[in-house]
């Protein structure tokens, strides 16, 4: 077996949510409010093989972006091991760490927010490869022009500023910038969420082409199950910081194992025109500040039983290459 390009073992990320004004005032009056801890990512294991597209889905606030940033090396985990090509990045020397960080690039949802408005596209795309010695300065223009062509933009785009482009074109600039440092893996965080469907289709097609052309590996984070189903080989379903089900897209969409996955899939509006009754999960995701004990889904799960309120279910194999964390599988 080949080495995973990236693996996470028991990775957690905690954030401290500072007290707000009213809580600080309450403390002055003698209350004992403490800053709260958000477990944005809670003991996650995930292995991504070279050339794979892994989709990451879940409701907002469940920790997808945080997990994406950990994979891209933008954030360090509070606990656990992140390994790039089998090597623990926490034990790498500076040069190795830089290589690993360059190899995994992130593409964001809001290209406007992530592109410096005062920089021309030439510099937005061309700066990093020069700084990192991937190309000499004299070659910058040719290099950027090639890359722009590769993502479907005219070379003349390099003389312009981000605000002079449409949303779809800015998404392409963001992709060109990520590709500029020769990454082996892209983490796409809601990369098409802000785009109109017809433009989204163009960008998704571009991701698929680039995958073939450069042999790229993807972690594709999206709240849109249709998009993930279209691009991903495997899907990881996240709930309140944990991965609760993992498996091939085909198998998971055909027969979801975890009750949360089942609920999520049943809520996706389909294009088939039939007025249907939505089967609605009848409550909202609990606050990550106070995740329910045991199985964190038990407050919304139609199948919950006594054990679910106390024991955290472990991920276990429920089929070839399929894992799910639900006590029903022991029954």
């Amino acid at each position: 077996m080949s080495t995973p390009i990236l693996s996470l073992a028991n990775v957690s990320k905690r954030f401290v949510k500072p007290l707000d004004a009213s809580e600080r005032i309450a403390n002055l009056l003698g209350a004992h409010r403490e800053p709260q801890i958000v477990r944005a990512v809670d003991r996650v294991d995930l292995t991504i093989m070279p050339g794979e597209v892994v989709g990451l889905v879940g409701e907002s606030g469940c920790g997808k972006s945080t997990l994406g940033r950990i994979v891209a090396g933008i954030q360090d985990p509070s606990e656990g091991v992140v390994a790039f090509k089998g090597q623990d990045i926490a034990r790498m020397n500076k040069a190795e760490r830089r290589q690993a960080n360059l190899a995994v690039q992130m593409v964001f949802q809001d290209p406007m927010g992530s592109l410096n408005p005062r920089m021309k596209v030439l510099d937005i795309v061309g700066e990093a490869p020069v700084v990192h010695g991937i190309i000499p300065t004299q070659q910058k223009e040719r290099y950027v022009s090639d890359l722009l062509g590769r993502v479907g933009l005219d070379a003349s785009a390099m003389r312009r500023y981000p605000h002079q482009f449409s949303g779809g074109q800015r998404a392409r600039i963001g992709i060109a910038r990520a590709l500029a440092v020769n990454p082996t893996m892209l983490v796409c965080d809601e990369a098409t969420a802000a785009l109109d469907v017809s433009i989204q289709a163009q960008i998704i097609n571009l991701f698929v082409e680039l995958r073939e052309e450069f042999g790229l590996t993807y972690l594709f984070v999206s709240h849109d199950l249709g998009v993930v189903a279209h691009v991903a080989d495997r899907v990881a379903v996240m709930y309140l910081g944990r991965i609760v089900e993992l498996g091939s897209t085909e198998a998971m969409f055909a027969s979801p194992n975890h009750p949360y996955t089942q609920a999520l899939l049943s809520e996706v509006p389909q294009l088939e025109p039939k007025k249907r009754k939505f089967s609605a999960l009848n409550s909202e995701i609990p606050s990550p500040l106070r995740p329910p004990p045991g199985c964190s889904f038990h407050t919304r799960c139609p199948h919950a039983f006594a054990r679910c309120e106390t024991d955290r279910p472990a991920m276990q194999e429920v089929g070839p290459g399929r894992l799910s964390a639900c006590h029903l599988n022991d029954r």
Partner: protein
Amino acid sequence: MSAVLEVSDLAVTFGTRDGLLKAVDGVSFSVSRGEVLGLVGESGSGKSITGLAIMGLIDAPGRIARGSVKFEGQELIGKNENTLRSLRGRRMAMIFQDPMSTLNPVLRIDTQMIETIRAHEKVSEKAARARARDALAKVGIPSPDERLLAYPHQFSGGMRQRVAIAIALLHGPSLIIADEPTTALDVTIQAQILSEVQTLAAETGTALVWITHDLSVVASLADRVAVMYAGRLVEEGQVADVLTQPLHPYTKGLIESVPSRNRRGSPLAQIPGMTPSLACLPEGCAFRPRCSRATEICLEAPGLTQHVGGRRVRCFHPSSNLGGGA
């Protein structure tokens, strides 16, 4: 079924530095009691402006240039602001993508709802409170008595949108225009809200115009769909007909570009190019530069033609697997 809303030849223009923009140009449709019309199109196609124009909420530099909006048989264009305001609170309501555009952040929910009720009806505070509580319960807000005492910021986005919907429903309006109210929400929350709205429309006979860019929401919610492109209605018909056999090349392109697992990994059909700017619309059919069926005749502006099954399409070369039309 009688039409609650009849829009004909509605046009809204904006005076800008680039000249006069036709944000909405000759839009016509009607909605009957208990019917859900999905109004779809990509950003900038004129959906919100159409909704605002119906409600009489177009502000300068925008202007209703022509057309008619008949609500329960009554012409609204040209009505004074007082009449419109009184209709808006009671007989027709609008729900926005951002619920905070309806909610006041510094007032408790009960204060806001009771005020809304008593602005239009002479009822006791106690009766108004009971109505407010029932309205919250109806849109699926748990422990409504307790939630009435909360402020908007104490609700999640999905709950806030429910409150906005509950407020829209307070007077049992005969028309609701909803502008992308679930776009910012998770699918699970969206499904809950769609399910409740569906039930309410069916129970109360409220006519609903649901504005969205998401065809799959239309597929699951609407009876009929109207598709807009560059300020014009390009296709209209029963949802089942339009989604399975689109007549207009733009509708067809939109449907095919929706990703799903059915065509996993294969390239999605894409509509080439991008939406034109209203400031420089191409001559003739606005879709022409992106259209694979375009011919010379498309340099003229196509009219909206009738087809079998009560369908309408604005195209010289509609898909020909159906009879009728040109």
